[in-house]
């Protein structure tokens, strides 16, 4: 891997991590969770995002765990119910990343997995549009670009800086 640009290196390193966590969890898990996904859907998701079947199951069980109201979709409150997310300065931005592509205020499983697919590690020749380097950088860019104008303005950068420096005060 070429690690020239520092930010993409960070992005790469950081975002690979999740994959490793997923696989760790998978190995920890004993039995399969009850699967409410149909197989075709599973296959579709697999093809689209590149996750393996086990990983998708794992994600699904997590999704249902988060979905307290059992509606099959997550709302912002569900996300913010996670304590670490709520206190993290970036938590909100990331939650927004989930909601960016959905019209109403709910995220269904497909969208959930799509966003998380950004974090998969890049394997050679098996990149798809989510976890490619480009895709990761896009995701990272969107974290900064709050008003979605495809530019990072000074104010946005300032907000980030403020968050980083001021957060623990």
């Amino acid at each position, binding site marked *: 891997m070429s690690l020239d640009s520092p*930010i993409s290196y960070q992005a790469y390193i950081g975002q690979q991590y*999740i994959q490793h966590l997923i696989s760790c969890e998978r190995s920890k898990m004993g039995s399969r969770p009850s699967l409410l996904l149909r197989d075709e859907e599973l296959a579709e998701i697999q093809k689209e995002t590149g996750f393996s079947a086990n990983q998708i199951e794992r994600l699904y069980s997590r999704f249902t765990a988060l979905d307290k109201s059992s509606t099959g979709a997550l709302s912002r409150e569900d996300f913010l119910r996670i304590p670490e997310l709520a206190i*993290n300065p970036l938590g909100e931005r990331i939650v927004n990343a989930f909601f960016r592509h959905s019209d109403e205020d709910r995220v269904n499983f497909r969208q959930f997995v799509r966003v998380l697919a950004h974090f998969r590690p890049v394997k050679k020749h098996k990149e798809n549009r989510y976890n490619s380097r480009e895709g990761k950088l896009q995701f990272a860019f969107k974290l900064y670009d709050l008003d979605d104008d495809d530019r990072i*303005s000074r104010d946005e950068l300032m907000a980030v800086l403020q968050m980083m420096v001021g957060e623990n005060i």
Partner: protein
Amino acid sequence: MLPPIILDAGYFMPNRLFFNNLGTILLFAVVGTLWNTFSIGLSLWGLGQAGLFNLSFQLPLLQSLLFSALISAVDPVAVLAVFEEIHVNEVLYIVVFGESLLNDAVTVVLYHMFEEYAKMGADQVEVTEIFKGIASFPVVALGGTLIGIIWGFLTGFITRFTNHVRVIEPIFIFVMAYLAYLCAETFHMSGILAITFCGITMKNYVEANISHKSHTTVKYAMKMLSSSSETIIFMFLGVSTIHDKHNWNWSFVIATVVFCTVYRIIGTIVLSALANKFRLHKLGRVDQFVMSYGGLRGAVAFALVLLIKLDSVDCQDDMRRMFVTTTIAVIYFTVFVQGITIKPLVQWLKVKRAHKRKPTMNERIHERLFDHTMAVVESLMGQVGHYHLRDKFKQFDNTYIRPCLIRDLKGAEPKILETFSKLTMRDAMDMMNRNPTGQSGKLHPDSVAAMLRSNMNGQGGSSGNLEQLDQSTWNIDLQELEYNLSRKDLSDAKIHHLLAEELYKPYRRQHRRLSYSRHAVHEKDLTTEQPVNYKTQMNFKRMVSEKALKSGKTRRTGAPNTSKNDGGHGSSSNGYVAYGEEYDNPVFTMSDERLQGKSSESHDGDGGIYFIAGGGSRVSPARRMTLRDDDDTGSPTKMERELPWKREDLEEASIRQNEFPAWSANKEYLAYNSPTNTYLGGLDRNQPRMPTVIGLFKRDSISSTPGSRRGSIQSIHYHNNRLESPRHSIGSDGSGGPSGVADTDNVILSSHNTPQMMSRRGSTFVALPIPEVAEETEKDLLEAEKKDGGHGRSAIKAVASTAEANKIEEVENSDDENGNPTDIPAPQQDNNNPAVENWSSSDNKSNQTHTKL
């Protein structure tokens, strides 16, 4: 002799890398060492049993295990020495190096264990003994670590109180670390681990507490001590080579060397495969090769082998000598052969090298951002992962530990602030360097007039400085100035303010160096005692000066117009030239009635010359002035409206000024430099530096810029023709002197008018240089920000668009433009360019700083 080396290693250990790779490191250190020990020991014993060694004695199992325990330990000294040379990438370095540090615990345990068994005799070793031995390992390792950490915290705590005894701070660090080592050794724990972790923990807290000088001292002393210790150790090795009686057994030596190498390679491969399952950054073949090849034995092994006593270990003299000889031989082999060849091998194999540079501000911020992001994603997944742990630890650290151990807790992001202060320091240095007349080094004379005269004298030879000392751009109009703050300026101010506020103290620490050259070594320079709170100082001074004013003692120059002072401003600003006691304490005194033209008198008690600008809303953010709004009106003062940090709710467009200041029609009036420029242009350079008039002059050259032009359009109400009121220009580069000129100097100044200046005189601006500015800006930014990619670009766009916006606006506002074109031929271009460049580079600095952000 070992502690200094280990302390050096621990203290300068890159924390992040170490803890990220801790799993791998531990794996290699513990499992790897165990594997090596047993495999080598058993093989040697096996060969001994098979009689291949031609030994005159029997090689019992325990002794060979003992020997292999000490010989399999990778030595931190040797590894450090070699790897420093070859500069491999950080991950590789940290894995090998970490392994060498941490395997000390294992080695020590094994060594003592086998020694005990050997003492007891091979027959009496029972299972319980073995278990005791195995159990002692965690105790030794964790005990050593814990002792080290405790001493590290103690050191941090002690340094919290050392602000009165700065000189001996380094001593504390060394002594405490050594005590940690001794303490651990006394309890038969791993001293090396203790001192390593002591160094690691200590660093985080001590760095924040000790003075800059102490920090430098510690750094150099540590390096020095560790280098000398290392040299001594190897010298000792060499001497004893010659000195001892040796028992050279070819086959034994060769067998040992072969086994060491082979088993290490095998061990590395197996363990890497295991580690790679859990690692993000996989260890490739080349990495593995370097790791196995870099497993040098050294002084630790030597020290241990010398400790084998004849009687206690039931080891005959021959055997002992053989061990010593072999150890020395192995050490020589690994150090010389492997150590020497590793460098060309590394180059040949194209191992990734380290990029030795400090992370830019951009990188730091993004790094932190991604830490948080990953922590979030982890929590989303319900995992307790790495980032999560790190985050939790940081939070805990910040809430509980840091407040106890650190004297003045500033912000929670010391690294970002550190980078910021470095950036600003660099900017400041650049500014200084750009002023080759060396005026900046001079002490400020007492009066502006003298300053000017000296300036002019110095000016002859340095035409390059013409624009910097462009006196025609001084603003003689001392009336209040409402500068029209551009949005960019506002956000600049905000950013600067945010960072500088965080950075309050370390900021000054870094800049002490500058202050040294400015004035005599002051007691204050020797301490990091921060003259602290500007606000309170300001308030105090204000109160004092008010009192003084009320009694009519203070000097007031110029009667400013008060029409701009809507019901009383917060305060007017005083700039003062040169400074004696404190870095910058302009006293802000207030209110209109005082400004109504009291006669000027002597100084204020502060020892500076105060120039009161009429009604200034020229408050330097650097001074952090608290503007008082004890005016009777309830509405927000103009000051409040304009000051960035007071402006939170009034974020909209900057306040528009009247289009043509009254004096603009006055052609006699020299172009002045808008406060925007002086005050905001160098926001990021705002330092507790000594303000000098010279600084002003430098700044004032930038009037050809959009920002300044904009300022020049402002309505300056020049009601009072008294040119004696020097205008206060907020020290953009930290200097707070007036940029105004006494009227007597007007005459002198006019002699310096160049066409460029002519055109600027009283004029609002010239449209021409703007494109240059934009270009310059863009170019400079581009150069400087190659690394920033998209962020830099967008910032550039932001700047360029602001510049364009400025241009357009100013074009509309120009009334002199037509009169000027002929004056703006090539000469102006030339003149302007450096000036422009000055500004743009100074602005670039601010842009760069912010972009780097």
